[in-house]
């Protein structure tokens, strides 16, 4: 009936290994494509194109990364240097993450700590944006951005994605747990609303800010449909879009070595953020979805 209790000495050991084996298989399924990509980025395009990619590193690593990073011409296709695309992705991810946090935290502060006419109207207006992901309003949003002359600009890439009901709701929820006595004490000490925000609320929100930052950075870095629409010039391309443009229609004879090197570089920042800030990230993810 109960395998891990019924036979603790002999069969138990063996049964104990099964979960580990399945988990390791899971880990392998997730790691294998990355491993192949990293290996591929150390070989030359011809070896990969022939379909005989070995499973051990080759000698072209430095050449491939240097070429992908700073040149715009591979052997077979043109591409935007990864240096430029990574910079665009970084600007986009940082502006979206920090911008969202900044405008959400102040609007949540307004809704939580003030009474004023139309307060609930504003709150619901923000709330409704939950139901309007960029994907369902792409064409009209694109037209607005085009009319404002923001195509091919950082502003066009980031500002339309910067309003976030999720972050505002999370901060509001957190602000409601700040005890009244704290605000009372601050008022008695003669601190105004701005002072209270800067000296008390902001420091208390540090954990929430860190957690949100991880999630929003990844959200910004991984955007696809929006940059695809908004950027036309090679100078403004983000790295995720750049990879698929380099692949084109996936002919066997293309610069696979450079594409794979670019893919590895494109994965590094978000994966590093998740692994290094794992504690904040898991907490933020589970909290922000409540």
């Amino acid at each position, binding site marked *: 009936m109960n395998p891990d209790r019924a036979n603790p000495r002999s069969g138990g050991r063996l049964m104990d290994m099964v979960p580990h084996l399945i988990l390791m298989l899971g880990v392998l399924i997730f790691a294998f494509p990355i491993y192949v990509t990293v290996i591929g980025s150390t070989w030359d395009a011809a070896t990969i194109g022939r379909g005989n990619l070995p499973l051990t590193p080759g000698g072209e690593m430095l050449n491939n990364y240097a070429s992908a990073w700073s040149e715009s011409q591979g052997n077979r296709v043109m591409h935007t240097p990864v240096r430029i695309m990574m910079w665009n992705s970084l600007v986009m991810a940082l502006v979206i993450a920090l911008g969202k946090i900044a405008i959400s935290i102040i609007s949540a502060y307004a809704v939580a700590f003030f009474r004023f006419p139309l307060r609930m109207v504003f709150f619901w*207006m923000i709330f409704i944006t939950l139901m309007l992901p960029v994907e369902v309003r792409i064409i009209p949003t694109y037209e607005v951005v085009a009319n404002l002359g923001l195509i091919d600009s950082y502003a066009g890439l980031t500002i339309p994605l910067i309003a976030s009901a999720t972050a505002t709701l999370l901060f509001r929820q957190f602000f409601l747990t700040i005890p*009244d006595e704290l605000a009372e004490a601050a008022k008695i000490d003669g601190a105004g609303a701005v002072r209270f925000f800067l000296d008390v609320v902001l420091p208390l929100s540090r954990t929430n800010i860190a957690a949100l930052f991880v999630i929003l950075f990844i959200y910004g870095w991984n955007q696809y449909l929006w940059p695809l629409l908004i950027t036309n010039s090679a100078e403004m391309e983000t790295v995720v879009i750049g990879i698929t443009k380099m*692949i084109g229609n996936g002919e066997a004879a293309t610069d696979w070595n450079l594409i794979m090197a670019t893919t590895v570089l494109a994965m590094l920042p978000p994966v590093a953020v998740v692994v290094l800030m794992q504690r904040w990230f898991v907490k933020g993810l589970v909290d922000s979805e409540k």
Partner: protein
Amino acid sequence: MQRRVIFDNKALPYLLLAPQVAVTLIFFIWPAAQALWQSVHLQDAFGLRSQFVGLENFEAVLSDPNYLETVKTTIIFSVSVTVLSLGSALGLAVLADSKIRAASAYKTLLIWPYALAPAVAAVLWMFIFNPDIGILGRALNNLGYAWDYRLNDGQALTMVILAASWKQVSYNFIFFLAGLQAIPRSVLEAASIDGAGAVRRFWTITFPLLSPTTFFLLVVDVVYAFFETFGTIHALTHGGPGKATETLIFRVYQDGVVNHDLGGSSAQSVILMVIVIALTAIQFRFVERKVHYS
């Protein structure tokens, strides 16, 4: 919920709200209203004049056999992605949770794919399953199985389903593991003393207690499959071969951006909005209930 202590500045709250409200009005409310307006109008070829046509755009969209085919593809795609990614994440989370000492190591090894963009996940799968250069794609062909997802409809759909599910497992895994670790050990131990085996403990205790998490993830995964997988499909198959992997969101893009059919694309956007609103409403009903009982 109301606070007792509030600040009484008159203008400050409006100033604080101004940035978010401005962005919301300009980039959310206005475009959404535009989509609604365009969905009941027909524009002439030059976009100069438009005429009110009532629900004609919707009728045209919903009676188009191609659109209905897209709906079918979207349903097959979304159900497969949801079931696959939920099922495998639950399995892995239960196993990781049972090995408490190693759980955190497995957690680190399994959650990082969350950081990958859906399009990057698709590209990684392409490197493996491309029939010309992919190690497994070539192996399939060498074994005599004619594998080319660029030509075969069913294989293309399988490929985007697998790549999209692969990326979503880590997200589900994080939530299942958090849900599992919140289940009191004492309950499971009591059941174990009463002679309930591992399988029975799972179905009678663990699974019911996880149901709020499962339900929440169900909605999130459906939303993911509907909208966020645009990158997966665009990078891997471009909706093809033919229209074999075209989902609803891909078609909005195709009709609106590539074919410049504003009325039709807007009607489709409005249909998608209704779907999102329904999903959000379901989610909030569930959240309310969870709060109520806990």
